[in-house]
């Protein structure tokens, strides 16, 4: 098969993207962990390490630019590179959301949690599951799997709504919990954004495979 060199470069590009995805996933896990276990040092590492995520994004964008200029990609090759550019931005933003969660953790500081965290970790698992499945679909160019990821967004949104109501109840019952409850809603919001960006990635997968750009599964919320 011809264009071995280019195929190799495309594979490397994809590997870099997956590496970035992995960095982001770890950042999210660590940030939620730091929240659960009140580990402020861990939270500070997440904030510190966000710059590595940014660097990686720029490195991937550079690669894409180079490939566009030097390889005259057409059709699916072109769509892949453009999709990588989009996805890289989404991943880097997810990293920012993880950093946001860590900052919340730092702000809450030494205060005890107003309630044990149950739904937030559940939401995290769902969101990271979506991210993993979206990147998997990307690797396997599986547009059916990507579409399913988009449909999971409804569950996330439902959970987000639920967490919000619960925290609202706390705030109404006891005004002293307002500050922390607000922080916790930010955490849920960040997680919802992470899930939403995973659906963006899934839409890119569909674009690579079919060449069509569309919003899949518009949210009820």
């Amino acid at each position: 098969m011809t264009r071995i060199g280019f195929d190799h470069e495309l594979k490397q590009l994809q590997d870099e993207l997956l590496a970035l995805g992995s960095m982001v996933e770890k950042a999210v896990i660590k940030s939620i962990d730091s929240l659960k276990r009140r580990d402020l040092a861990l939270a500070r590492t997440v904030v510190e390490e966000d710059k590595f995520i940014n660097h990686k994004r720029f490195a991937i964008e550079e690669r894409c630019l180079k490939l566009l200029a030097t390889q005259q990609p057409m059709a699916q090759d072109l769509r892949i590179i453009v999709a990588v550019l989009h996805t890289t931005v989404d991943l880097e933003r997810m990293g920012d959301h993880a950093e946001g969660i860590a900052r919340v953790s730092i702000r809450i500081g030494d205060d005890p949690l107003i309630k044990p965290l149950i739904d937030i970790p559940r939401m995290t698992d769902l969101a990271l599951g979506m991210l993993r499945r979206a990147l998997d679909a990307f690797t396997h160019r599986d547009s059916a799997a990507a579409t399913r990821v988009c449909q999971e967004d409804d569950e996330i949104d439902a959970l987000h709504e639920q967490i919000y109501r619960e925290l609202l109840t706390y705030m109404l019952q006891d005004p002293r919990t307002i500050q922390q409850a607000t922080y916790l809603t930010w955490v849920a919001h960040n997680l919802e954004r992470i899930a939403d960006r995973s659906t963006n990635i899934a839409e890119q997968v569909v674009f690579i495979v079919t060449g069509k750009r569309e919003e899949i599964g518009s949210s009820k919320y």
Partner: protein
Amino acid sequence: MAQAPVNIRPSKHLEVPPMPIGDEPENADPMASETIALETKSLQVFYGSRLALDGISMKVAARRITAIIGPSGCGKSTLLRCFNRMNELLQGARIAGEVLFMGEDLYARDVDPTEVRYRIGMVFQKPNPFPKSIYDNVAFGPRINGNKGNLDELVEQSLRRAALWDEVKDRLKKSALELSGGQQQRLCIARALAVAPEVILMDEPASALDPLATLKIEDLMQELAKDYTIVIVTHNMQQAARVSDYTAFLTTEGGGAPGKLVEFGPKDVIFTNPRDQRTQDYITGRFG
């Protein structure tokens, strides 16, 4: 068919609609709003007993640039030559199926091939000016056609349209062979324009030229497309991507099998999201 008029502007001057862009419903015919200049219907080309092209059905839109791409030997030039009946110069060539020009059968019994070639001109891969003066080269076509009058104006107009006038206006009587490759090719284009064709066929017009000359020819093509229908065969995919409005992809299964039309469509579609895997493989350079 009527004789071509002497002035070089084509007789019909239509309003040219903008290219249809991709927001039509899926199955809409992208050529619905186009005037069709040339059309083939189940065209087959035989050289003796060998089938060179099989079942080619395509339309060429008027005043657009249609590119024909495909691997070497798949029959692109053969297809191009069907449009101006140049295939007949080769021994044993014949066609089956139809080739229509503005709805009329080009191969009908009462159609004179030389008449066809006045209305459908051709430019070749390697510039082939006659070993005569620049003036005589451009005037050749009109003189053949019986135009014995003063051809100065016609020659000037043709050279202007081919973006060559300024470079040669002081040396019209000098030999055409003194020009550079790119200039010679533009001279060949001027020569073709002088007989006032409606269609210009170009068989890899820039492949023998350096990059700068190539780009000049491409610019010229796009300028000419405002008034003429252009069909170009090219093996340079980036060129097809740059200049064409519609692209046709031809290929053959190899081993002497006939060439077939795999896909045809607006060039944006062909180069960003082709329907056929073979088209995709070809334009992304995946062979073997």
